[in-house]
């Protein structure tokens, strides 16, 4: 409102004294410059992240005596340094996919529950509860995973081992404890709210005529969802899954606390062990020398590239859907 006053007083000023008033062009230029500069600065940060990671990763890659892609051991601080990302890549991809597998059905269920099943008055509050899950920091999930879930999950783990042991993933001798499976459960809980809140938004956008048409044909509630809601929301749900996957791939402290360090690739996910890119970085950073740090930066660069590809794919799906619906 002050702006109107300003203009009025300015106008009065002009008529009385014919004093030249500011056209605001200079202010406009400065302000526009600041806004543009900030926008460009964001691009510069992204470029700088890639550039500095590559720059600082090169020394270790040159000094590496092993094969960076296929070695399963991480001995970046021994002389000569030998390290490879095979175990880290395995643990990262495995835990993220398991988490996605567990979280997606539950997340879609929650989204459907809040948008179609829950009483209207409750829906907002329930959405808030799910959002609270997202607000809990990852370190607290890690603490809970290590000092509560690991201790109280032996029953479930031995059940899976006994009855589903014929599936190679659930086989193994000394099951239980700080395993990749428990790590994946913690990750699944963490990505649940992301997938469900995006799915919910997509479900809410389903045009009412689609839903009413299904209902008019006598469809039950489930048939309405299957015929009108799920087809419409499919691409949105897929991109939500990929965003969740991106988060699971990059998650650090929770999984670093829950897993125990055992070298080598182990397909028996119920046995203790497992490692991921991010977990390896925070665990070995403390005792790393110059080459060790550089090697960790190299592994971080790989993680950066993987998550970027996953995220870009997710965005591409979303934007294609936008073009399709508008």
């Amino acid at each position, binding site marked *: 409102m002050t*702006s109107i006053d300003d203009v009025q007083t300015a106008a009065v000023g002009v008529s009385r004294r014919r004093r030249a008033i500011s056209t605001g062009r200079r202010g406009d230029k400065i302000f526009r410059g600041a806004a543009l500069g900030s926008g460009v600065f964001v691009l510069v940060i992204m470029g700088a992240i890639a550039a500095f990671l590559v720059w600082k990763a090169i020394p270790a890659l040159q000094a590496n005596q092993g094969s960076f892609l296929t070695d399963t051991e991480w001995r970046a601080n021994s002389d000569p340094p030998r390290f490879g990302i095979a175990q880290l890549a395995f643990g990262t991809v495995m835990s993220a996919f398991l988490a996605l597998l567990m979280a997606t059905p539950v997340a879609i269920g929650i989204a459907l529950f809040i948008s179609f*099943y829950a009483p209207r008055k409750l829906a907002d509050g329930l959405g808030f509860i799910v959002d609270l899950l997202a607000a809990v*920091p990852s370190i607290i999930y890690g603490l809970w995973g290590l000092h509560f879930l690991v201790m109280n999950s032996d029953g479930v783990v031995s059940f899976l081992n006994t009855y589903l042991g014929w599936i190679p993933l659930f086989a193994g001798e000394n099951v239980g404890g700080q395993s990749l499976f428990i790590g994946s459960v913690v990750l699944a809980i963490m990505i649940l709210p992301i997938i469900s809140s995006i799915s919910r938004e997509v479900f809410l956008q389903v045009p009412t005529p689609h839903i009413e048409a299904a209902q008019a044909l006598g469809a039950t509630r489930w048939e309405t969802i299957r015929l009108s809601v799920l087809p419409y929301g499919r691409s949105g749900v897929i991109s939500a899954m990929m965003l969740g996957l991106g988060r699971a791939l990059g998650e650090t402290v929770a999984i670093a606390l829950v897993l125990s360090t055992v070298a080598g690739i182990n397909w028996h996910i119920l046995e203790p062990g497992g490692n991921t890119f991010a977990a390896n970085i925070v665990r070995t950073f403390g005792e790393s020398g110059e080459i060790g740090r550089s090697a960790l930066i190299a592994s971080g660069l790989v993680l950066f590239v993987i998550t970027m590809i996953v995220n870009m794919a997710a965005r591409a799906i979303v934007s294609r859907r936008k073009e399709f619906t508008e």
Partner: protein
Amino acid sequence: MSVLTAKTGQAIPETSLGRKLKDRTVLIAVYVAFALAVIPLVSVLYKVISEGVQVISADFLTRSMNGIGGRDAGGGVYHSIVGTLEQVALASAMSIPIAVLTAVYLVEYGQGKRLAKTISFFVDVMTGIPSIVAGLFVLAFWILVLGFEVSGFAGALALGVLMIPTVVRSAEEMLKLVPNELREASYALGVPRWRTVMKVVLPTAFTGIVTGIMLAVARVMGETAPLLLTIWVTKVINFNAFQGAQSSLPTYIWEQASDPNQVAVARAWGAALTLIFIIMVLNIGARLLARRTSIR
């Protein structure tokens, strides 16, 4: 359909048992899914509160860990609270102006321009950067290349990188909601564009932007991984964020939780309760503010 049935005189066929059964099954599955999500939330909150309450005391909140070993009882989180507040404040001071101005560019100046589309795309990509990568970036850039020592400020830089995209997104959404009529009214009165943005657009979107900022602050407050690489660990109180190692609540929890001693784990729960309390206050405050948002 009803017309047809009226002609033939048949009753409308009831929904078959199979379809009813399917509908019921899905209904139950959806309820179970919701319960499955609530269980871990309740379990986490219960565990943090019940374990944390036993530890938290005036002593715990006002003392550092100076001279206290892993096995000793006592000690507190004061040095970590100081660190967290300073780091988050610095990160906010650096990233909020940049983020809000970027949002202003995207909405007010960049409409339809290729540069704006590029920026918007990379803001999206930036949202997905793992926090550990932001930490590695600051490590490579600030500490290894420029040669600065670890400090609370280095941690704030990493947190700032993580804050920018979230604030840009939420501010952008809020600015888009400002009705165009307001801008046009202002232009019609001869008000220059920048004053229109400063005096009309931003004030209208103010509560919404603040809500977004509070949520972003709450999010970075719990970030651990980038801080582990940039602020190091210390047991003593360090008020100077620009020099020397500093503690923070998340790294304190990491440190104490990794220690197998029971007293250390208990301290971790205490710090977790402190952290979650601050974050929940910010979150609930943001939601309450969002309800009062002037734009509908």
